C-alpha cells in the first residue's frame, strides 16, 4: 500500500506520518495522539483510532487488546464554547 494513504481525515495524517512516528519510538496511542493530533479532530478518533491501533500492532507485534487506548473525556462531540458559556452574559 502506498504511504500517502490517508489514515486520519480530520488532521490530514497519512500512513507515512504514522509509520514515521512509530519509527521514532512513539509506540503508544497516547504518545502518537499527542505528537500527531490523531483522534483529536472533529470525529474524535471514530475513524482513525482503530486504524492507528492496527498500525501499532503491526509494527510492535503486540496484540490489539494489549495496546491500550487513550482516555475518553467529555464532550463526545465537538461543541461551540458558546454552549458552555451561554449561561453567562457580560455586563
Amino acid at each position: 500500500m502506498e504511504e500517502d494513504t490517508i489514515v486520519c481525515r480530520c488532521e490530514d495524517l497519512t500512513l507515512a506520518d504514522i509509520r514515521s512516528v512509530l519509527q521514532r519510538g512513539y509506540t503508544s496511542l497516547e504518545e502518537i495522539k499527542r505528537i500527531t493530533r490523531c483522534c483529536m479532530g472533529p470525529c474524535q478518533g471514530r475513524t482513525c483510532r482503530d486504524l492507528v491501533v492496527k498500525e501499532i500492532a503491526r509494527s510492535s507485534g503486540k496484540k490489539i487488546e494489549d495496546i491500550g487506548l487513550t482516555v475518553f473525556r467529555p464532550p463526545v462531540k465537538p461543541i461551540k464554547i458558546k454552549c458552555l458559556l451561554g449561561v453567562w452574559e457580560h455586563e
Partner: protein
Amino acid sequence: MRCKRERVIFLQQTEIAVVGGGPAGLAAALEAVKMGCQVTLIDRHAFLGGQLVKQTHKFFGSSKQYAGIRGIDIAKRLAGDLDSGPGKVSLELNTTVLGYYDDGVLLVEKDERVSPLFPERIIVATGAMEKMLLFRNNDLPGVYGAGAVQTLMNLYGVVPGCRVLMIGAGNIGLIVSYQLLQAGVEVAAIVEGDTRIGGYLVHAAKVQRSGIPIYTSHTILEATGENCVEGAVICQVDEKWQPLAGTEREIAVDVICLAVGLTPLTELLRQAGCEMYYVPELGGYVPLRDENMQTTLPHIFVAGDAAGVEEASIAMVEGKIAGISAAGSLRSCTKIDGLLEACRQELHELRAGDTGDKSRRGLEKLRKTMEKRKYAEKDESTGLLRA
C-alpha cells in the same frame, strides 16, 4: 469584569435515562415505562428509530421480532407504542449526551445549550459506528460508508452515483447492494476479504440472482481517478488477507461503498468507567455485562450494538432485557424473572444457526470473563446486582 447570569440551570432528575432511540433504546424505554418507571429517552436526531429508519427491507425471524415488516415501519410502530403506552416517556430529540461525570450526572446538549441530567439508572443504547478501510486514495470523493449511502438514498432520495463497487459481503453490504439496485443504481461487484459470505444466504442469493458477482478472498487496493472516483483496483488475497501479486484488476465505478463492519459506540461507558473487553467477534471493545445487560457499574445497563454488534432484532430483545432489569433494580419487582427468561429464550433462538456462530463465540468469551469478576453484590430477590 462582572457577569450576569442569563439563565439558571437546574439539575433535571429522572429515574431511567435511555441514551439512543434506535431499536434497543426504544424497546428499553417501552419496557421500563410499562413497569411504572419515569423514563427519559434521548436521541441526537430529530426522529426516533435510529438505523431502523433506513431499513426499507422486510425483517425475518419470528413474529415476536416483527418478521415481514420493513425496518422503517418497525420504527414507526415502536415510536407509536411509546405514545400510546401506559406511562409517559419524556422524549428529548435533537439532544446529545456529551458526557458522563463521576457524580453520575450526564451532560446533555440541545439547541447549543448544555444542561445536567441526573438519572438513577442509565441505559446506554448508542449503537455502533462504521469501520474505515485503508487503501490508496480512500479520501477521493465517491468513497462512502454504507450508512451514508443508505441515508442518502432511503432518507433523502438521492442516489450516490451510477455504478458502485461494494466492499464487504456481510448483511449490510448485501442489503445496501440490493437497495442500490432498487434505486436503479448499477452494482459492479461485491468484494469480500473473507473466504465466505458473512451475511444471510437469503440476502446473498437475492443479489446474486440479480446478476451481481460476489468475489470472496478479494480486497480493494486503491481508488483511481483525478478529482473523484473513476475506478477501483481490486485483487485476490491469501488466507492472511495479504494481496496476491499479479491478481490485480481495475473496475470502472464512480462510487466505492464501504461495508466493512461496525464497532460499538462506547464513549459514555468508558467515561463512566465500565470495564471494557476486546471481543473482535462483537466488533471490538465491548462493555463487560451479564445476561441482564447490567455492566460492571450496576446502575448502568447496555443494549443493542453498543453492547456488541449484532442484528436489529437482537438489539430490540436486548433493549427489552435492559429496560426490565433497570426498572427491576429500582422497584425491586420480583416478577421480572419470568419476563427476563422469556427474552433470553428469544435471544437464544435469534442467535441459533450458522449465522449466529460468530456472536455466540464472542458472547461466550464475555461470559467466561464475567464469571471471574466479583464486583458487586447480588440482590437475591431479583437476581440483579445491587446498584
